[in-house]
């Protein structure tokens, strides 16, 4: 049982990590807690679903459509919900509230368009294969999500460290004003950040839609809370930290259920969160405080 639970934990961890990647990125660069991230994630799942069911696309093409669709949605979100506030130097709380509003609107729009019903990807979108090795059972989708979250994490890290846009993002994260003085087009970098972050949300929407067969306008809310815990635990805005924290939170939950009781699943996980923050207020991998991404 232990090995299977370990697999369960790794699997759930990759789910959390995948969701938290884009979530933490916007925070790292812009200091904005984007609470509409869960709504974009949900729209990503629906973009993918529409591409498969209405346009008869194969799943990999649907993934690209979903990433592109949510990326664009992210840019719109920035234009409508965040940019006007940024221009006016509004306090950070205003941006958070604005993102809650945007989230509500996006969820209502989805409900209007798709109804409250839960839907799923067609059964044949992906072979539902189960691999059995000794006492451990793993499904194809679990392996795919795990590999995808690792690949996307590495890609994101390389992008941040190596590419010009990525370097510019980190500069903006350090100081928007100084970056502007140095000739970086801050506005373009912010747009890029929102695009990348939202495309990642869209990808995780498709993957989790495939994994859990529970696509609905409300699928963003539960994971958003877990995602928030993950990015705080990992050190706000810290990408490798978010990955690590995703696995840590998942392991606490899974082993909490396995060896304590499922009644306390979330209680155990969030107690760990509080304890970590008591001793390391900036998260596991959080550096000092000001510099991020």
């Amino acid at each position, binding site marked *: 049982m232990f090995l299977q639970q370990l697999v369960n934990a790794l699997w759930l961890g990759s789910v959390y990590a995948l969701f938290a990647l884009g979530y933490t990125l916007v925070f790292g660069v812009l200091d904005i807690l984007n609470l509409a991230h869960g709504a974009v994630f949900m729209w990503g799942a629906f973009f993918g679903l529409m591409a498969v069911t209405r346009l008869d696309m194969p799943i990999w093409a649907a993934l690209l459509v979903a990433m592109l669709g949510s990326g664009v949605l992210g840019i719109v979100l920035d234009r409508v919900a965040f940019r006007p506030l940024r221009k006016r130097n509004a306090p950070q709380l205003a941006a958070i509230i604005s993102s809650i509003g945007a989230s509500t609107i996006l969820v209502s729009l989805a409900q209007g368009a798709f109804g409250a019903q839960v839907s799923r990807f067609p059964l044949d979108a992906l072979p539902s294969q189960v691999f059995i090795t000794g006492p451990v059972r793993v499904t194809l989708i679990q392996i795919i999500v795990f590999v995808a979250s690792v690949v996307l994490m590495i890609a994101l890290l390389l992008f941040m460290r190596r590419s010009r846009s990525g370097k510019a993002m980190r500069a903006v994260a350090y100081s928007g004003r100084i970056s502007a003085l140095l000739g970086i087009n801050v506005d373009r970098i912010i747009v890029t950040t929102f695009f990348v972050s939202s495309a990642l949300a869209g990808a995780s929407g498709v993957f989790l839609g495939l994994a859990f067969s529970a696509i609905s306008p409300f699928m963003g809310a539960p994971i958003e809370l877990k995602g928030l815990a993950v990015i705080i635990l990992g050190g706000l805005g810290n990408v490798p930290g978010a990955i690590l924290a995703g696995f840590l939170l998942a392991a606490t939950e899974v082993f909490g*259920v396995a060896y304590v009781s499922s009644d306390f699943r979330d209680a155990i996980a969030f107690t760990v969160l509080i304890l970590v923050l008591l001793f390391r207020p900036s998260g596991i991998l959080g550096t000092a405080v000001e510099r991020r991404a």
Partner: protein
Amino acid sequence: MKPRRFALLLLVVLSLLAAACAPPATQAPADQPTVQEPAAEPTAESAAEPAAQSSGLSGEVVVGCAHALSGPIAIYGEPIRNGIMLAAKQINDQKLLGDATLSIVCEDTAGDKAQAINAFQVLINQDKVVAILGPTLSNSAFAADPVAQEAKIPVLGSSNTAAGITDMGDYVFRDSLPESDVIPNTILVTKDKLGYSKVAVMYGNDDQFTKSGYDVFAEALASSGTEVVATETFAKGDTDFSAQLTKIAALEPEALIVSALAEEAANIMIQARQLGLDVPIIGGNGFNSPKLAEIAGPAAEGAISGAAWNIGNPAPENTAFVEAYRAEYGGDPDQFAAQAYTAAWLMATAIKNAGSADPAAIRDALAAIKDFPSPLGTYSFDENRNPVHTPVVLIVKDGQFQVFE
């Protein structure tokens, strides 16, 4: 921004989120547009027909419908409203109320207690309804039904199955068989046919409906001498159940009992099969949605549930209902639609029998209904305003619910 101020801000947001997200229903905006779907002509001016009028029924009789039309619970609220609207249309087409027309005014409860109370108040004080159909959830019923009881307006729930609903007062009715009737029958029948002696149980512990379903299961299992090797819980909106199911699989139960709503149940089935837990899965009312087989696909094969209604029931009232529903909405009705449809017919029959739009007279006429032919079977209310008709046990075969035998 200074670290400390920021930490404080985060804490505020986090607690806000935790409070707001727990029941996803509360995310729905507070100012949901009122859905008004008059069955016949306009709505507003109709309002209160003077109750004392001796000439009986005329004009419009306004009945309220308070159901979850937005939010996650709308998965149940939508078929329920469809059932009510279909019944209202037929009632008016057949001129059941003579010269009077039945008008249904819907308010959205969003599956939320506070909004349910609000909806009841709007219906009673503003729309001057003579009776209310609803609300969708037992949770909401416990909060809102006292409002109707206080105002002496009969309220008929068609999907409230938790224990104690009608104990709230003599104006509170339901036509949904409580879990305490359905579940013991399910356990009796399945234990007899499958011969299991040790089972594992899973239930949602943050919802009154799934929790009360669990309580009845636990009692029925205990009284049938079945050993429960594990009891695991989960929360509404959870999607990953692999930790609980792995634990359960290791204990090798002969059946898995699940008290959950259809969405969670579907994912539990999928993940149980993936983890190699191939025992029969038995559930309650939450299973009774076509969505279950649709979402779980092949994993739902063999799932067993107790139900108040069977789509394949050959009684003419039932086949007529199923056909009319398909023609109107282009899909199969579920149990919630059937019960809501029956509720609207029961209410209209009570209004007709009362011969007036006086809520007290309607209440008495409703309580007196006996042997009413309905899609649910021959229907009566018992002395506690609970339904009396025979439950069935269903099994999913080839993606369809069939009678388990």
